[in-house]
């Protein structure tokens, strides 16, 4: 079985966006989702394309062209889906993030965890 190499932070965001968007993952929607995940950092559409190309070369995602639609001036979308290797890489990254979180809570205490929980709650509402 092929082992996935490590993911950069931006690659994690793009893969998460593709995972969350299911069948509607293409340039514009991925950009919107990544911008939402990366908040407050701004993200350019070009950076999304560059990362998608890199992920496709690593065989973490696969792409295909959809049918042209009038709201895009009669042009097709390039849709993306997560491949098994990409899913595995994302799962490993999520596990690492979880371990970082658990260690931070252990070191800084439950009060810090509650404080951050409240902060995140505010951000998401």
């Amino acid at each position, binding site marked *: 079985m092929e082992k996935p190499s490590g993911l950069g932070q931006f690659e994690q965001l793009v893969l998460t966006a593709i995972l969350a968007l299911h069948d509607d993952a293409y340039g514009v929607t991925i950009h919107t989702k990544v911008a939402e995940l990366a908040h407050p950092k701004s993200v350019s559409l070009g950076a999304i394309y560059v990362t998608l190309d890199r992920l496709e070369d690593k065989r973490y995602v696969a792409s295909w062209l959809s049918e042209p639609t009038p709201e*895009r001036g009669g042009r097709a979308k390039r849709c993306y889906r997560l491949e098994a290797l990409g899913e595995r890489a994302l799962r490993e990254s999520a596990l690492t993030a979880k371990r970082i979180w658990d260690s931070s809570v252990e070191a800084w205490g439950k009060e810090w965890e509650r404080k951050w929980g409240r902060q995140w709650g505010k951000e998401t509402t």
Partner: protein
Amino acid sequence: MTGSAPPRKLERLVALLVPPARREEVLGDLYERYKSPAQYAADAAVTVPQILASQIRRTSDPGVVLLEALALYFCFFPTDGRPGAAGFFQQPQLLRILIQVACGLFGLRLADAYMTARSLRQLSLRAATGAGLACLSQIALSAARPDLALSGWALFRDGGLALMALSLMQMANPAYGGGLTPASAGEARKKDPVRRNGASLDPRSRGRSLWAYFAPAFVFLAFGLLFAVTQNRDVRIGAALLLFLGLWRVLSRPRPGSGTKPSN
């Protein structure tokens, strides 16, 4: 989306700048995000250079880049009998050649990114872009530092030599002609009438013509002769390297049909 479309002229300009392999989806995405001509232009100005850089990365083969760098280096090399041969490793000769090689390689990478088919016309255009940019760098250099620049007959002779070497090398080797990834080739053929008319988009699926046997033989003969005839040790090393790399590239070429399957 406001329901209006970007100005046609602006869209056509952006379409010209986006590499053909990515044109369809990028223009569609920009169209979908359109709010005003200024926003569209700003969006395109940020997006297009990044796509171009990514396409150059995807279509650049390290072996091919090295081979072409060596070919350009020795085409513009001041060999025996030319002024400046003795002092090659001293400035300004080395700097002049490095500028020419860098510009030539940049031209070839750009041509690869915009290539749509491995046709004779596009390969000739590719070689002309590489050799042309290398020569143009000397014309630009002659304005700032005439003592550094190559000019007149020498520029014409070396430019012609570079054009010939690049043309023959890329025709000899099916790995040339980037532009197309196997994944994009199938889709492109369906979508784009210009590409549909191309003989074959995937160089790996192309059959070998008589020319495909003649060209490598000619390249090897030319560099073999250069190796045998020259008295200059550096040119000998260069010719031997080119022969070795060329042979390696031809022998390591993928067999027809062994390429990656299109992802769709």
